């Protein structure tokens, strides 16, 4: 099954070109044929393991040279052939980021297997990310107990998780009088204490293994702690968190442009009347990608301007995904409308890029908030 001669898992994946070539090959040969199945519900852990061994989840980690550009490009290669797996690659990448940046020895011990795709974990930060900027309320609450915290509440919709896997999570710690003291961030192990609850059916990307996670007095030990308090940690990684998502969008955009070009030889004479032609889309995409690569050089820059730049590329990535995927369907015509065609699947993938946290509306809301001058109340 594994058609790629991947280096052994201890390999440091030092050669960017080799990592990208290996990841690209797995994406083309294994993911592309499975994309429809994954879209309908197949959770491709087997292929994801191969991607891990090829180095797809390593680039952005300090241990592997903090090559965010490589991580984004690898994610883009994956997403170009399957947006759902591109999204899970992102989730897996940021989970690794949490483990590494936590500095917690217990989590660092687990990081190697995670990076190599031997174990899997995602991120349950959609709700807290919105909660921390004031869009919605925090779903989980924690109480201090001897040796750790006790956490209760339900996290809605966490992807890339399954029994035996794990995900990053944040809970609000309240004082006795009910007021908020601070937040903690921890690695939530989905063991026998956690019943995963099925989500309603989505219109696509069903193979992302997305569940609701109800917790009742779940004990979080020191070994699981990512950050206590969580806010300074989130502040430090949020640029990197959002920037990595550009990889999902990049793949959807490039995949759409590929589909448009495929149709050119036979349909070019009529397609010339469409707007958003491939060269235009490619020019906008190249400019966007170039900006993202510059930002990838300094992923932990804590300045407001940097974060604005990151939100700007992420937002433009979502907008261009929508535009490119729609154009791809129009360029392919009826062929693109077939149930098993890539363009119609990408329409749904692109909309996912546009609505997943931070969605276009959140990104614009946050940018407006950052641009506004603070004045006395």
């Amino acid at each position, binding site marked *: 099954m594994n058609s790629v001669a991947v280096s052994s898992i201890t390999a440091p994946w030092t050669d960017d070109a080799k990592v990208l070539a290996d990841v690209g090959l797995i994406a083309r040969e294994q993911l592309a044929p499975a994309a429809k199945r994954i879209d309908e519900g197949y959770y491709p852990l087997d292929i994801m393991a191969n991607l891990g061994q090829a180095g797809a989840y390593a680039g952005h980690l300090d241990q592997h040279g903090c090559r965010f550009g490589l991580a984004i490009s690898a994610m883009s290669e994956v997403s170009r052939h399957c947006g759902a797996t591109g999204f899970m690659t992102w989730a897996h990448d940021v989970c690794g980021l949490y483990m590494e940046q936590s500095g917690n020895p217990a989590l660092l011990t687990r990081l190697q297997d995670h990076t190599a795709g031997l174990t899997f974990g995602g991120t349950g930060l959609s709700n807290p990310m919105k909660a921390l900027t004031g869009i919605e309320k925090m779903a989980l609450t924690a109480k201090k107990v001897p040796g750790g915290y006790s956490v209760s509440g339900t996290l809605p919709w966490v992807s890339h998780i399954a029994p035996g896997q794990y995900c990053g999570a944040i809970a609000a710690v309240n004082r006795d009088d009910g007021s908020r003291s601070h937040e903690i961030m921890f690695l939530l192990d989905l063991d026998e204490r956690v019943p995963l609850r099925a989500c309603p059916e989505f219109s696509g990307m069903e193979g992302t293994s997305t569940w609701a996670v109800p917790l009742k007095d779940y004990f979080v030990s020191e070994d699981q702690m990512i950050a206590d308090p969580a806010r300074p940690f989130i502040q430090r990684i949020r640029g990197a968190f959002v920037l990595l998502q550009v990889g999902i969008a990049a793949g959807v955009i490039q995949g759409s442009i590929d589909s448009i070009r495929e149709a050119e030889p036979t349909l070019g004479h009529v397609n010339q009347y469409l707007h958003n032609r491939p060269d235009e889309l490619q*020019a*906008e995409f190249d*400019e966007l990608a170039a900006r993202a690569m510059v930002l990838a050089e300094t992923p932990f820059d804590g300045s407001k*301007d940097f974060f*604005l*730049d990151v*939100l*700007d590329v992420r*937002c*433009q990535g979502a*907008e261009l995904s929508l535009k490119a995927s729609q154009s791809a369907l129009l360029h392919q015509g009826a062929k693109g409308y077939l149930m098993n065609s890539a363009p119609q699947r990408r329409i749904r993938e692109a909309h996912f890029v546009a609505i997943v946290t931070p969605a276009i509306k959140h990104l*614009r*809301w946050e*940018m*407006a908030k950052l*641009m*506004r*001058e*603070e*004045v*006395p*109340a």
Partner: protein
Amino acid sequence: MSHDVQEWRQYLCRACGLIYDEEKGDPDSGLAPGTRFEDIPDDWECPLCGVTKTDFELFEKPVVVAVEQTAHFSAEPGIVVVGAGLAGWAAVEAIRQLDQSVPVTLISACSADLYHKPELSVAISRGLDKAALIQETGVDAARRLGVQLMAETFVVGISPSLHQLRTTRGSLTYTKLILAQGAKPALPAQLPPELCWRVNDLACWSGMQQALAKGPQSIAIVGAGMIGCEIAEDLVRAGHRVTLLDRNASPLAGLLPEPASQRLRDSFAALGITYIGNDDITGVTQLDNQQKQIRFGSGNTLEVDQVLAATGLMTDNRLARIAGLDFDRGISVAADTLQTSQADIYALGDCINIEGTACRFIEPIKHQAKAIAHGVLNLEASAYQHSAPVVRLKTRSLPVVMNGLPLAGVDWTLIHEDADELVMEQRFDNQVIAHLKVGASTQTRAA
């Protein structure tokens, strides 16, 4: 009798942009409606800034034909203007004078309502509020001028190679782009934004005005530059207890020679303004009783109800950086065309820098707008010629009028001095480069 047949004319104050309309007169200073400009006495003063008749010029109101609000379909995306302050609207007006149909989109972080910014430094003592200052809503002006308005919208990114602009309400493309983003208050780290008011736009001024409307209060104004000085007088006249703070020994020390600065200080003292100079602020904190405590390098402290920072302006370099525009404390533009270092992008108003200096005054804006309008419409050039505008401090108790551009380090010569008036000049290479007149105004003398 010729007055009956002649149309009413309007005259523009070159110092502050106020328009004297013969039809309306200026009843507050005794000019009945219908008073012709030539019949105004020579010692009459601009009701906003106090310059005399000689600093007014005939204002020919552009006749702009409203175009119908139908959506344009055009392969050309059109002209996009960023910023709806006086500069942004001036650019739109100038374009519409020359071309009534080219698609124009105006994007602005603020509500885009039209107001005359210089009025902000005299409005509180006149009992004005935000509604009274708005001359036309942004929506009405956009309809009148046939432009698409995107108000409360921030531009966050520009890609010149794609002619693309990204905003907090989506992205759009432009054929020509005009930046009129203004300047922002430069707040030193010791002055936390959540505790210090600034007066550089109507919304923030309005916040301060509402806070002060609750009753007489103590207020510290940090920075005794032009705006700090003007507002100090405005607020003391409105019945507040004003302390003016500066690291220099006397107000406006950066612009004025010592004797002039001293006169201003004396005049402020007579008005009841406390001036504290020669002391640096090290921090501001909020006390439990909601008062703000200011701490000084000297170890002194001061508790006040409100703090206003008037510590100068700076241009935000974000858009210039992203678009790769030359920037040197302002968006660098060519002195004659106001084009930036990128093709198809122009800039005017407070955000620009011509040959290394910013010029944040009203007077140049309309000339800049005219040059840009010709440029973006590819019409025969109408070159902009920069000259230093008359600077008139809107301190009614002691008018200060500066002509020309004083240079730091060049000596001032005393021309005339008596109890009411001080006249000085700066000469360089045997030429007068700056002329300064500090003197009791006729208004105060009459009062």
